[in-house]
């Protein structure tokens, strides 16, 4: 088995990258993801990997180079945050529609403006409809594990889609934790050799990648892309099962924390789950039936499974670390309520929290559970779309 080591989230992901030994990494620095390519540059310069490391001049070029490399048949990866991800936007869609299994460490940071370097999820939430699979992780261990699994999910012939490994800037990316690393050889065996079906200069015949696609077939290609995203759900579970056999670490579509007999629950993403679990434990010690759901797979969205998990609860709060600016709620909230529509009658409220790195403490999470308990008791919802910990 692998060894234990003290690593920051970024360092852990850079180690995963080294163990995967991709063919190409093209990147441009941006806080808080900078360290990933930076550690990797050191590995490349020390000859620990066989990778072409290309420090390009912008993220638009980073993702473009990833697209070119992947189209030429290379296993390719990169890392970015916030405006870097936004600057990749055009290329994100092209990578997904070209069915190129690029893997990206998306270290969550608030998107400008106003400019801010701290954590929230406005960057990757904006990319949720770009056609990328999105995995979210609470801890350094999850960021590392998801990154390794991402390669196998992305490259699966039924998927062939790019994957983002999303984890919280600074909170996860820079905090140091003891994590369990796989052996280099185990990672190598797990991800296997990359054997794309079609790539440039492929001996099996001529290909054109990313050509003009007019009304005659554009729609069918988008339909295939949507199908691949649906397939991804099954493939993610298969890959996670295989990973479990290798490591003993179990991953599903989401983590259910003390949900068996829960009456009220919070649903959220990433590192705040740690804070919320402490509150759940505290409430449980007082006999309150509180639970938590931490979404791991946000794209594809696990609609049926979420409905099954939330059905029968007296009240649910969805916490979004990004606003939706739709006048109705955050992106996770709208996905959850539309999943529940017509399938389960659950009272769901929304809290927007932690924007631009606003600290979220156990006291804040307690406020949310208190509100849920009131709803559970009275059956009435005062306000659906709320802000947590804001100065008003």
């Amino acid at each position, binding site marked *: 088995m692998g060894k234990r080591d003290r690593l920051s989230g970024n360092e852990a992901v850079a180690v995963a990258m080294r163990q995967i030994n991709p063919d190409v990494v093209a990147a*441009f*620095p*941006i*806080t808080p993801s*900078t360290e990933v*390519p*930076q550690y990797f*540059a*050191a590995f490349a*310069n020390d000859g620990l990997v066989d990778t072409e*490391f290309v*420090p390009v*001049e*912008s*993220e638009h070029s980073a993702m473009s180079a990833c697209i070119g490399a992947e189209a030429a048949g290379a296993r390719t990866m990169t890392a970015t945050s916030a*405006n870097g991800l936004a*600057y990749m936007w055009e290329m994100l869609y092209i990578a997904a529609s070209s069915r190129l299994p690029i893997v990206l460490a998306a270290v969550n940071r608030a998107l*400008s*403006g106003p*400019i801010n370097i701290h954590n929230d999820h406005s960057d990757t939430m904006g990319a949720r409809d770009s056609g990328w699979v999105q995995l979210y992780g609470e801890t350094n261990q999850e960021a590392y594990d998801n990154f390794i699994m991402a390669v196998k999910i992305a490259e699966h012939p039924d998927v062939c889609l790019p994957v983002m490994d999303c984890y919280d800037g600074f909170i996860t990316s820079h905090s140091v934790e003891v994590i369990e690393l796989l052996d280099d050889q185990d990672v190598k065996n797990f991800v296997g050799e990359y054997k794309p079906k079609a790539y440039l200069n492929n001996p099996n015949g001529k290909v054109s990648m990313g050509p003009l696609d007019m009304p005659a077939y554009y729609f069918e290609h988008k339909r295939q892309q949507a199908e691949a995203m649906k397939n991804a759900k099954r493939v993610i579970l298969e890959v996670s099962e295989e990973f479990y056999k290798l490591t003993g670490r179990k991953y599903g579509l989401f983590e259910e924390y003390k949900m068996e007999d829960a009456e009220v629950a919070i649903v959220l993403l990433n590192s705040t789950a740690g804070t919320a679990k402490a509150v759940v434990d505290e409430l449980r010690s007082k006999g309150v039936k509180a639970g938590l759901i931490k979404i791991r797979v946000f794209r594809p969205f696990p609609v049926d499974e979420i409905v099954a998990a939330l059905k029968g609860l007296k009240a649910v709060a969805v916490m979004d670390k990004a606003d939706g600016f739709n006048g109705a709620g955050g992106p996770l909230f709208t996905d959850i309520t539309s999943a529940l529509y017509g399938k389960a009658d659950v009272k769901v409220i929304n809290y927007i929290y932690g924007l631009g790195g606003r600290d979220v403490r156990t006291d804040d999470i307690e406020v949310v559970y208190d509100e849920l308990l009131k709803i559970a008791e009275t059956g009435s919802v005062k306000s659906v779309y709320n802000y947590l910990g804001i100065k008003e």
Partner: protein
Amino acid sequence: MSKLYERPKSLCDVPMHYCPGCTHGIAHRLIAEVMDELGIEGETVGVAPVGCAVFAYDYFECDMQEAAHGRAPAVATGIKRVIPDRIVFTYQGDGDLAAIGTAETVHAAARGENITVIFINNAIYGMTGGQMAPTSLPGQFTQTSPYGRDVKKQGYPVRISEMLSTLDGPSYIERVSLDSVPNINNAKKAIKKAFQKQIDKKGFSLVEVLSTCPTNWGLSPVESMKWLKDNMIPYYPLGVFKDVD
């Protein structure tokens, strides 16, 4: 008693966040002195970059607009087209101007936009912690070139002033350095001339200011000045590359 030295009116009376010995502070002061001397403080708009100078809006007494990384010349274009009788300048590092914002720089220059660009070339991405920039010198140690920039793998530095001087749009392009008192005095003259070109509606002007980043170069401020003189000036020769009336 006569006053020999005072804070320019155009420079805010606040402590700067720059590292000790960083030349961003000198460059700010020169611009502020020029704004005072030309009497344009009340009619100038500055465009701040993303980079260590992201807080430039805290230091100049004029109105400031923050631009996304690399976009300053395009944003300045918009501002200048609306208030053509005001003075619009951008203040940009080499990552901002010569990496992610190269297209904006080239096209603002090619259009002959009547703006002034102050280009701080410190041969590294300072703010993100010292990664290789397109302007990093051959052999230069950075976080992403830990054994020195290998031109075979990582290409060659970009000489922006020379490149832009091949265009017909710019009216004035000069490269200066902040490594010594005579060079600092020259830098101020160049900055003043660049603003004057804009006042005279001559079109795009740019001053490339060779600068230091002691923190990420891993040198003391004094050693940094020497490193600039011994390494940067030979690769980036000082002088006027374009001056048309």
